[in-house]
């Protein structure tokens, strides 16, 4: 088994949904920090992340983010497959977002072309989103991060273990986090669903068969 024994009723979504999005499929490279989130190592070397912990952290992250004014949350991804998920998350939760390259000074220099004043930052990968992560640390903002087996937890205040590279995985995890934030805020009923499935959060691939 690639996942721990867990009943669907204990999870936010049935485990099959996590599995089909590849949430549990972590990288081959593993850091010591991430060992607490790895369930086992598959024979091909890929790290199987513990989806029970992913589920638990999504719940906690949603509660945490929901305590901030929507406009003071900044969601970021410099990874192409993260663009659409982050924009969708921001649209539904009414947060700020930046996708793509971050200009230096975005959080630290009021004279920067795009100067933002968030109170909390959500990054899709601390390594890829290093620029904004560094700036958030510099000005004392808490950092929530999606972390894969190859990330460290350095300067991360709340970690959500997940495949943070795959197109479907990023779509799914942001879709789930969006739904939970809206449920905690009361914008959706406790068992309410978003009007779109997670496919709507996925980056479309054009021109490749």
């Amino acid at each position, binding site marked *: 088994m690639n996942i721990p024994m867990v009943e669907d009723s204990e999870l936010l979504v049935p485990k099959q949904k996590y599995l089909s999005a590849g949430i549990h499929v972590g990288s081959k490279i593993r850091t010591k920090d991430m060992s607490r989130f790895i369930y086992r190592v598959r024979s091909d070397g890929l790290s199987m992340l513990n989806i029970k912990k992913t589920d638990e952290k999504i719940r906690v992250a949603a509660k945490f983010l929901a*305590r901030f004014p929507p406009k003071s949350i900044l969601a970021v991804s410099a990874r192409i497959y993260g663009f659409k998920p982050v924009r969708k998350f921001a649209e539904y939760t009414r947060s700020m977002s930046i996708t793509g390259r971050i200009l230096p000074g975005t959080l630290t220099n009021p004279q920067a072309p795009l100067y933002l*004043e968030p109170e909390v930052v959500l990054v899709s990968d601390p390594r890829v989103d290093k620029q904004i992560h560094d700036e958030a640390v510099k000005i004392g903002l808490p950092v929530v991060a999606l972390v894969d087996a190859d990330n460290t937890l350095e300067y991360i*205040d709340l970690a959500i273990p997940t495949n943070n590279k795959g197109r479907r995985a990023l779509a799914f995890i942001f879709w789930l986090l969006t739904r939970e934030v809206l449920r905690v805020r009361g914008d959706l009923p406790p068992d309410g669903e978003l009007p779109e499935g997670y496919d709507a959060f996925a980056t479309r691939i054009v021109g490749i068969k």
Partner: protein
Amino acid sequence: MSERRPLKMDLVKLDEELYCTSCGRRVTYERGVVVFSCPNCGETIIVRCNMCRKHSNEYICPNCGFRGP
């Protein structure tokens, strides 16, 4: 644009002494320090010193037992 109000100003008074939730050391407002309400229960203030954050040392909420990061 509104004036910048770092979160920690809202959470702690300026004359309050801060102690790192992980290591217990007294911290000042140096770079790398962060203050936030417990992600899980929201009832307590978590303080993380620069070193504990750098070394990703665990913090435990004294109220609900949540272990971060």
